[in-house]
């Protein structure tokens, strides 16, 4: 109720009128829609085109997905089920092929009682990554990471436990011979000894020791042959071993490319450019067709190992470029500081330069890995049964001859999940590094 008197001309509002709702077009969804979707004619046009594209794709694919059939023993059965459920002219996905063969797409021909082994190997790999990728982890864990390749090898291929141990001991032999030789013959010869002794050990002793030990104490997992690997397990193994093995070589190549020594520099540059200039598929054909020409007559080892060697060389060149970027990104002062402390080249690299450079390079290395992981699909052209190769083999069985899209959708989805999450991780690392550098 107002209390103003009638003849007083001055007007003083003593009471606020209640707040009005903002105009409908300026609030809530409508405002958001107007600002984000229909601001200006160009923007509106883009929105409409996008909506049309989405509708077009969904309307073509959705019924196929919605009518999918998961329980059938063969494509013919699938068609019968479809005719019974939806009628014969309805498009329908036959995902029964996935429920029938998913183990094969993921594990290849790995014995089904051992499916836990590739999974355990993957877990071991992730555990090994933890101290490498997260600097807050205790440094001692790095030693465990170093042991991981042997554990993974053991888990994947199996066989006697003594083989990988005998090989791993070789590294211990190397370090020991360095320590022993150092006071006697000096640094250089100690280094040479630390290389030569373990090589001799691997060549002549490790086999004997391993077989002796395994005959005395036969511990181990059932042996699985390389030819039984397939599907995503194969992709992961080739990708992961390619990256792990190529790291040392890649770092050496990067250092070589930065080196002042003309010949070393030229050799590194030539290696990197030749590897990077030629498509992976050509290198894979080299592995399968030509590697036997280059090795001593009569030598022969399995295709998977040859592919891993080729992929290692291939990714080493890419890793070298990533690490070179890391080295170049370090401030010049770090190099000069190391020099002024009187550190020699290797010490400077080991203690000052590489730890920093590698840290910057991790996102690049992860991206290289994603690329490599996707590229492992190319091994289908040399007859290894990766997911795509297996999809061909599955189609060749009379049950599933004629199934086409379902297999590709499944494979594509799995690849997407793996690569997308790794990509996100590398992005997160990059952002974190940027924050730390501020």
């Amino acid at each position: 109720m107002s209390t103003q008197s009638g003849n007083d001309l001055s007007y003083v509002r003593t009471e606020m009128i209640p707040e009005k709702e903002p105009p409908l077009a300026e609030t809530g969804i409508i405002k958001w829609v107007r600002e984000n979707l229909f601001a200006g004619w160009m923007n509106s046009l883009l929105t409409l085109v996008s909506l049309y594209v989405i509708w077009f794709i969904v309307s073509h694919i959705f019924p196929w997905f919605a009518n999918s059939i998961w329980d059938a023993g063969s494509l013919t059965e699938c068609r019968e089920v479809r005719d019974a459920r939806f009628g014969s002219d309805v498009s329908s996905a036959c995902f029964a092929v996935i429920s029938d063969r998913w183990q094969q797409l993921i594990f290849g021909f790995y014995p089904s009682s051992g499916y836990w082994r590739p999974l355990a190997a993957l877990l071991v790999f992730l555990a090994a990554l933890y101290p490498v990728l997260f600097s807050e982890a205790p440094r001692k864990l790095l030693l465990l990471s170093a042991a991981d390749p042997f554990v993974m090898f053991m888990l994947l291929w199996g066989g006697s436990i003594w083989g990988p141990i005998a090989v791993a001991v070789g590294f211990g032999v190397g370090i020991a011979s360095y320590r022993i030789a150092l006071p006697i013959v000096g640094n250089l010869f100690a280094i040479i000894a630390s290389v030569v002794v373990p090589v001799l050990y691997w060549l002549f002793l490790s086999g004997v020791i391993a077989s002796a030990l395994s005959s005395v104490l036969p511990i181990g997992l059932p042996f699985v042959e390389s030819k039984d690997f397939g599907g995503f397990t194969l992709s992961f193994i080739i990708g992961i071993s390619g990256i792990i093995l190529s790291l040392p070589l890649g770092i050496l190549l990067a250092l070589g490319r930065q080196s002042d020594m003309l010949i070393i520099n030229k050799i590194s540059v030539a290696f990197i450019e030749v590897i990077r200039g030629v498509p992976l598929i050509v290198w894979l054909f080299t592995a399968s067709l030509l590697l036997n020409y280059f090795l001593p007559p009569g030598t022969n080892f399995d295709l998977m190992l040859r592919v891993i060697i080729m992929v290692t060389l291939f990714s080493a060149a890419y890793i070298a470029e990533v690490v070179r970027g890391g080295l170049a990104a370090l401030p010049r002062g770090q190099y000069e500081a190391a020099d002024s402390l009187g550190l020699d080249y290797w010490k400077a690299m080991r203690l000052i330069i590489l730890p920093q450079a590698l840290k910057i390079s991790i996102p690049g290395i992860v991206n290289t890995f994603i690329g490599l992981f996707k590229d492992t699909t190319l091994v289908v052209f040399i007859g290894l049964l990766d997911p795509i190769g297996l999809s061909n083999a599955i189609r060749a069985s009379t049950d599933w001859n004629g199934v086409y899209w379902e297999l590709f959708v499944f494979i594509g989805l799995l690849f997407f999940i793996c690569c997308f999450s790794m990509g996100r991780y590398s992005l997160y690392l990059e952002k974190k590094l940027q924050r730390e550098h501020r």
Partner: protein
Amino acid sequence: MKKTVLFGAMAVAGLAAGAASAATLDDVRAAGTLRCGVSTGLPGFAAPDANGVWEGFDVAVCRAVAAAVLGDANAVDFSPLTTQVRFTALASGEIDLLARNTTWTFSRDVDLKNEFVGVNYYDGQGFMARRDLGVTSAKELDGATVCIQTGTTTELNLADFFRTNNISYEPVPIETNAEAQQQYLAGACDVYTTDASGLAATRATFENPGDHVILPEIISKEPLGPLVRHGDQDWGDIVRWTLNGLIAAEELGITSANVAELAAGTNNPEINRMLGSEGELGAMLGLDADWLVNVIGSVGNYGEIFEANIGESTPIGLARGLNAQWTDGGLLYSPPFR
């Protein structure tokens, strides 16, 4: 033999395979398995089942040889091989035997240094077209788009056929059978050409097989057979006579069901010689006397293998045709076991 530097250690773990020495038989015996190259997947001829066990007509040849040499039809390591790498894999000693629906040609036998040991399937290149296209003969295909699989003799035959008939065509080369099938069904090509057996197998899996016809022309001879490395005649003899044994067994009525009974001795001297109750044929090959008993006992005779994998009772549904015994008007004709 562990010759590889640095891989010595890996050889311990069994990663590095042994070297190919002159005597393949000794290598196979030492390894305990036969390494056999097969197709990466061809319906009816080679494909892994849901348990990863390889099955098929070509696979059966591998199993037969393993049974002859090692007494165990399952002692086979299968290497799936693409058309591009198959001969290299054989030449380099990666595999001991290649049974990958490979056509026996002069240049492959002589120039590429392989040794074909026989023919396990007489095939020929044919054409499949849609029924509503109204084509009744391959000679009416002037200007047609033709789907072919690359890397095989197929594309050479095709070029020759169209050139001799002086008609034009548009080749659409495709890498795998599955893709070729998809392209053909989508109508991206008018005709699909490959070996007639492959055409029949493919057609059988179509939703409406009746909509497609296989044209009467067979434009090439495609004797498909197993092959071994050039230069080891003894090993070649073993594979050749295992194959002949399969064929002769059908002719003589030896089956997986009655082989054990016949092995005890019959009044047919050739059966006796084959099954080891008479003569020394097995020893001449360096094998056990009951080598063919093992073979037929585990994989059956040629006819049984045919029926189980590609015969009329299977979805592939191939008729015997040329692959009938010579007594039935076919081409299968095993030299005598004598």
